[in-house]
Structure formats: C-alpha cells, structure tokens
C-alpha cells in the first residue's frame, strides 16, 4: 500500500481544525434561550460536515474518491448559509469558508480520488 498523499493529510487536518472552530461557534451561538437553537443547530451542522470531510481524507474513508468533493461542497454551503443567517462572527465564518474552499480543492485533486478509490481500507 502506497503512503497516504500529503494532500489527504492536510485535508484531514484542515477538516479537524474547521470542526473544532465550528464547535466553538456552537458554544458562542448559544445565548441561554431556545430562540438561539436554530443558529446552534446550524453551527453544529457545520462542525459535523467538517468532521465528515476530515474522515473522508483518511485511509479508512467510507466513501468513494469522487464523493469526498460532494461532502466538501455541502460543508462549504453550510458555512455560506451561516454567513447569510449570521450564525456566528463574520470573521470566524470567513475562516471556515477559506478552510472549506481549500478542502474542496484538495478533494478535486486526481491524486486524492485515485488513491482513495485504489487504496482505501
């Protein structure tokens, strides 16, 4: 088995970082009232998607190579929705959007998709 490509390692790391930042946003979105639940849920969705993307970039990924970009796209869409709905601080969402965009680029690399299709466990 060939070693995991560096792009996948970076993609997984960025996914984890994005997920952790999104979990911080979850905490920041909760203001003690049930009215804040939609924003809490939105940030939690972002965190879940980032962790899913991070998992997609590992050798134990449960999805095909071409599916990782779909996960990354859904993740990025959730971040942009959070920006539009003001789910968290704008600068924080901007950081997440950049991380999401980089993950999309990594997921689109033929190196990643071919390795995942051929070598995943």
């Amino acid at each position: 088995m060939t070693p995991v490509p560096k792009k996948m390692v970076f993609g997984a790391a960025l996914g984890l970082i994005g997920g952790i930042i999104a979990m911080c946003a979850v905490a920041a979105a909760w203001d003690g009232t049930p009215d804040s639940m939609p924003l809490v849920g939105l940030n939690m969705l972002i965190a879940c998607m980032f962790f899913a993307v991070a998992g997609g970039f590992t050798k134990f990924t449960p999805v095909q190579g071409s599916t990782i970009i779909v996960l990354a796209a859904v993740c990025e869409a959730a971040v942009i929705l959070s920006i539009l709905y003001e789910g968290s601080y704008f600068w924080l969402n901007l950081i997440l959007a950049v991380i999401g965009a980089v993950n999309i680029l990594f997921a689109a690399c033929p190196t990643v998709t071919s390795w995942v299709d051929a070598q995943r466990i």
Partner: protein
Amino acid sequence: MNVSNRHPGPFAAIGLLAAFAFAVVLIVAINGDSAWVYGENMLSDLGISDVQMSADLFNYGCLIVGILVFVYGLGKAACETECNRASGCILAISAIFLILIGYIHSDFGNGNTHDTIAILTFLFLFIAMVLSAIGDWRDGARINTAITVILILIILGCAVGMSIEALEVITVACGIVWLAAISSKMIIPKKA
C-alpha cells in the same frame, strides 16, 4: 463534454459578459434608489422605482441581459451533450422570461402577470442549475459541480428561513455566479 467541432468560446464570452453586466446593472440600480432596502423590497420594485435611472437600468438591463443569456443558453445546448445540453435549453427558456420581466413591470395590471413570469424565471433557472450539476458530474468537471451544488444548497437553505425579498436577491446573486462559473468552464472545451 464537447463532442463536436463547434467552438464554445464565443458563447462562453457572451455568458461571462451577461453575468458581469447583470451584476453591474443591479448594483448601480440599487445604489441609485435610496428607497430600496434589502430584505424589504423585491428586485422588481427597481423596475417601477421613482428614480428613473434605476427603473430604466433595471428594465433595459433585464431585456439586454436576457437576450445575451438566451444566446448563451442556445450555444451551451449546441456545444454540450446530454444533461448540459438540456441545461442550456432550459436556461434559454429562463432567459425569455427574464426578457419579459424587463418588458412587463410589476405595475402592469394587478401585478400577477409580472409575478408569474418572475417565478417561472427562477424555476427554470433552478432546473438549469440542477441539470448542469448532473452534466458536469458526468463529464468529470468536479470543481464546477461543487460550485453548482454549493449554490443550489444556498438557495434551498435560504428558501427555508428567509423572506421572499431576501431570497430573490440571493437567488439572483447565485445565478450570476453560476453563469460565470459555467461560462468559464466552456471557454476551454474538452475534446471527446
């Protein structure tokens, strides 16, 4: 995928021009009318604005950009295959409705004609986006697929929780970005 000898370059240029022009037209028209408020006014309110410049910009802008998008849609249908060809046809139909938006303002009659045309414009645009995503996926254009999927999800997400006025603006913005993205992809065709 382009399987013919038709070169999509000119059509791609028209698509890029249409996206850029419509963005400029809307930005200038909105800035020209200080009474227009995001989230409270529809874009169609620009067509009947008290500021004549904004009204003319919006109406004539819809007419001219609609013609450009119509030509681009037909070009996409001619140069692409399968789902992308269908997307081009549906986009051309959406463009016809866009032309009618510029021609029939929301003051015409009781406003229902204009509203019907506007809804049909966005409906056909959305269908064209979905078909384009499927076609790009099958052609292996992953980045384009990702961009289109993101825009579709943004539209659906905003439809759930935002007012129709805000949704309209966001849908138009997503449509402009999508048009620019698929035009950029068409500039460099892939041979079969």
